[in-house]
């Protein structure tokens, strides 16, 4: 958006002012995230920049809070849990969600919008209601012998349910530009259904499936309300551990964990961006 040549002086002033406003808004968006990164290297247990830090004295910085994570069994356990639960629920969500998206993208499907509404609902219902409902139901669905609350299975199923809408949406979106003739071609050349699926459909929708899976993973990785309600001590995840830390006393260890999480989210973001571009290229969309 370059400034047009016919702009008057007032418009020029506005142009720069507008740029300034935008810069301020971007500042508001990004600075809160960046600010905790240097603070996590604070040698002192404070949450502000010490004068020494501002003078860039080497002694003011340290890795002690990172060492804290490595030496703390609870943090390590929660990191392990986050990955176990995140990966397992992503697998469930992605496989079920991809199948459903294939069905949803068929024109013949009856009661499509009702089905879509039901399948998307875990994304819409406020988490507190979901968490409360799951707490009751998973505690004793069919008598206490089957209790799923405070088990890994329970948390994984709950997170899978929360993650499926994202898979459904992203894969459905990928399928919008999908050329059905490719399936017919494959079938007519004698390929059976599984072969067609894995050799023809899958490669084409893979970017959508992967970004859906990443969304599902992040949903689980970042989820704390359901974990608060139905996970036990054994299933504590990173956000649950952070929640406990923030409520009690924020130690700078939390800032170190936060920094690690920011790095992870940056990597996820980069992956999603690459996939999106690849997808657009494959479908011939260009800028």
């Amino acid at each position, binding site marked *: 958006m370059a400034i047009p040549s016919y702009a008057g002086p007032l418009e020029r002033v506005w142009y720069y002012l507008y740029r300034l406003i935008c810069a301020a808004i971007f500042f508001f968006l990004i600075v809160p995230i960046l600010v905790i990164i240097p603070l996590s290297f604070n040698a002192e247990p404070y949450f502000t920049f010490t004068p020494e830090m501002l003078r860039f004295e080497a002694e003011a910085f340290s890795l002690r809070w990172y060492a804290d994570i490595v030496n703390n069994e609870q943090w390590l356990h929660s990191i392990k849990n986050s990955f176990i639960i995140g990966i397992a629920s992503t697998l469930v969500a992605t496989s079920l969600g991809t199948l459903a998206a294939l069905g949803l993208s068929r024109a013949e499907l009856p009661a499509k919008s009702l089905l879509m509404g039901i399948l998307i609902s875990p994304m819409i219902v406020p988490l507190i209601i979901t968490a409360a409902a799951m*707490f*009751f139901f998973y*505690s*004793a669905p069919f008598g*206490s012998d089957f*209790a799923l*609350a*405070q088990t890994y299975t329970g948390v994984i199923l709950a997170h899978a349910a929360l993650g499926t809408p994202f898979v459904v949406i992203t894969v459905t979106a990928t399928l919008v530009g999908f050329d059905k003739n490719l399936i017919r071609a494959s079938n007519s050349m004698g390929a059976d259904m599984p072969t067609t699926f894995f050799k023809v459909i899958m490669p084409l929708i893979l970017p959508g499936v992967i970004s859906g899976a990443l969304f599902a993973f992040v949903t689980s990785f970042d989820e704390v309300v359901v974990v608060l309600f139905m996970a*036990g*001590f*054994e299933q504590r995840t990173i956000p649950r551990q952070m929640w*406990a830390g923030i*409520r*009690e*006393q924020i130690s700078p260890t939390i800032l170190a964990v936060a920094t690690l999480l920011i790095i992870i989210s940056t990597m996820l973001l980069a992956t999603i961006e690459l996939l999106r571009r690849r997808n657009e290229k494959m479908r011939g969309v260009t800028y």
Partner: protein
Amino acid sequence: MNHLLKSAGVAAVALAAIGYAGTSSAETLTIVSWGGAYTKSQVEAYHKPWIAQTGDTINSEDYNGGLAEIRAQVEAGNVTWNLVDVELSDAVRGCDEGILETLPTDDLPAGDDGTAAAEDFIAGTVHECAVGTIVWSTVYAYDTTKFDTGPTTIADFFDLEKFPGKRGMRKTPKANLEMALLADGVPSDEIYDLLATPEGVERAFAKLDTIKDDTIWWEAGAQPPQLLADGEVVMTTAYNGRLFNAIAKENKPFEIVWDGQVWDIDLWVIPRGAPNMERSWEFIKFSTDTQRLADQAKYISYGPVRKSSFDKILPEMQPHMPTAPDNFKNPLQNDFEFWADYGDELNERFNAWLAS
């Protein structure tokens, strides 16, 4: 001779524990307590020696008191907590409601001077469903750098003119209503009779109203020393042991005001239907023996509930105990029956009051 007897007692307890460990495999216990310095003292005094002797794994979980979590687990039929450290009123209440296991308290070991357990425990610290561990107290402390002459009475806590600045209080009516009435000039032996009347409750809330806008409410025991240290408040109520830790171990410039302290005991309970009940009971017996209770007082300034443990408290810890004569001048014992009966209503009232 006396010394010899004591050592023999210790050896016997240790042997019993080792013998127990020999007969059964290692188990996992989830032990729930109040977090921070207090849990740390329990880990040092109880958990570590227990782990050393039995090889058990102990998951130490934190909570902020109250029966809600226990009740939720029992109601939902999914109990994962083995042992919980609760206040007396909650122990009585939980027992009445049948959400706690009744304990074979006749089975508690004698003190290591040979006194039978029934005699050795201070009266009222062993209950149908609970075994006491410590005597603790809610007091208030202030930041000495903020005042030339600091507050000295409980009334000063509510005096914003003489001592301006933010207050910190626990987010519960318990102890706060009592302190409000004490500060309002009600003698300590009339507090609970008055609080049982609507007028008394009105009066207590009216007193709290005077500082409501200047109060930050804390929930976890570790928060108030942090609030003081961060300068978020100039004075705050807190558990005396947490303040001791901040003052003695972290050299914080805080001063405790013992006037109007509200003291209470903490007890072990087992939620009803908890797994591993027998192992939990063994742990209770172990952690409430003479030596363990005395050991705990090394790490935090809470008094043991066994008379036989008193002599074993380190001399430098004595003056910091809530029951030390200098501190025990205007104490109020938390009335567990009152809070067992009225706790829910006052909690509801208190939360509505906070939200309005």
